[in-house]
């Protein structure tokens, strides 16, 4: 709940993979059964720890893809040179166990109960994941807070959650920016997000909006600076950086 800091230890727990879904050619959603999961807020993440037979461990942080009240799920993009994501996206099967701890984070979170400001969500690539949790939470809560999503992605086949995002179109406008490849007849934005597109999509600053921006570092910097120059107060622009292109 908004503003309540719950003091509790963050401990590793064993979760069981309940189901996996391929979202795109390189992105997979992993739904977890975690009996000790304390629940989460939209926008939070969790840590995953893999332990090799020789005891070597690798930890990664992943945004939670599901809404509060839903079974915890993460969406992982495969990085071919990654240590963890190839295992999670190609080897892991329903019934496998995974060590997780969470939920983590209290800055990049959105609570429907406390929300009044129009919501601007801006995603670069797999930065859509925590914003999908926010969109789902918004839809499930029935709040009247208006929302817009700006989603920068290489091409339409790289859009994660596409059919779900289409369903939101009636209540939350979705604008795609295709940075690499657009289909024939595409009338939407081509190329990276720029000041003109932001000015077009963003709620006017006078409506007291709040923005959540998540994606590769360069995307986040461009969008956050653009919103501030449109008059958004910096504290109203929440940012989460995934590092280089492609995500963590």
């Amino acid at each position, binding site marked *: 709940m908004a503003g309540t*800091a*719950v*003091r509790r*230890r*963050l401990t590793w727990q064993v979760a069981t993979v309940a189901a996996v879904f391929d979202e795109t050619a390189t992105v997979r959603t992993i739904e977890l059964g975690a009996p000790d999961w304390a629940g989460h807020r939209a926008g939070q*993440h*969790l*840590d995953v720890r893999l332990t090799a037979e020789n005891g070597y461990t690798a*930890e990664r*942080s992943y945004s939670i893809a599901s809404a509060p009240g839903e079974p915890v799920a993460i969406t992982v993009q495969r990085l071919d040179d990654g240590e963890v994501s190839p295992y999670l996206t190609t080897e892991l099967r329903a019934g496998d166990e995974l060590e997780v*701890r*969470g939920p*983590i*984070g*209290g*800055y*990049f979170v959105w609570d429907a109960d406390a929300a009044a400001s129009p919501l601007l969500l801006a995603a670069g690539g797999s930065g859509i994941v925590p914003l999908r949790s926010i969109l789902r939470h918004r839809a499930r809560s029935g709040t009247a807070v208006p929302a817009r999503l700006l989603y920068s992605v290489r091409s339409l086949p790289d859009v994660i959650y596409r059919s779900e995002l289409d369903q939101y179109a009636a209540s939350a406008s979705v604008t795609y920016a295709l940075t690499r490849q657009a289909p024939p007849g595409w009338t939407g934005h081509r190329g990276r997000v720029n000041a003109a597109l932001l000015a077009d999509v963003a709620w006017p600053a006078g409506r007291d909006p709040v923005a959540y921006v998540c994606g590769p*570092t360069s995307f986040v910097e461009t969008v956050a600076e653009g919103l501030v120059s449109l008059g958004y107060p910096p504290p109203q622009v*929440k*940012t*989460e*950086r*995934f*590092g*280089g292109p492609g995500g*963590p």
Partner: protein
Amino acid sequence: MDALDGNAIGGVLHEVFGTEMTAATATCASCGATGPVALFTVFLRAPGIVARCRVCSAVVMVIVSAKGMNCVDLRGLARLDAA
């Protein structure tokens, strides 16, 4: 090496401080800038975790984990107030 931000170290900070810290308010000892820990520029694969002030780039936090123990250097911070 790719820079992340303070959101990425929410887990280890929770482990160290026993509570959620990404929304905590930090004040840089070098330039005096104040803002949420989530805004730090974070490098995970330095020798240990290194967090820098987003305004002046001074090192504000170093966390080195070894043998199950976290060694934490906060000398770059003037203040750190949990949310």
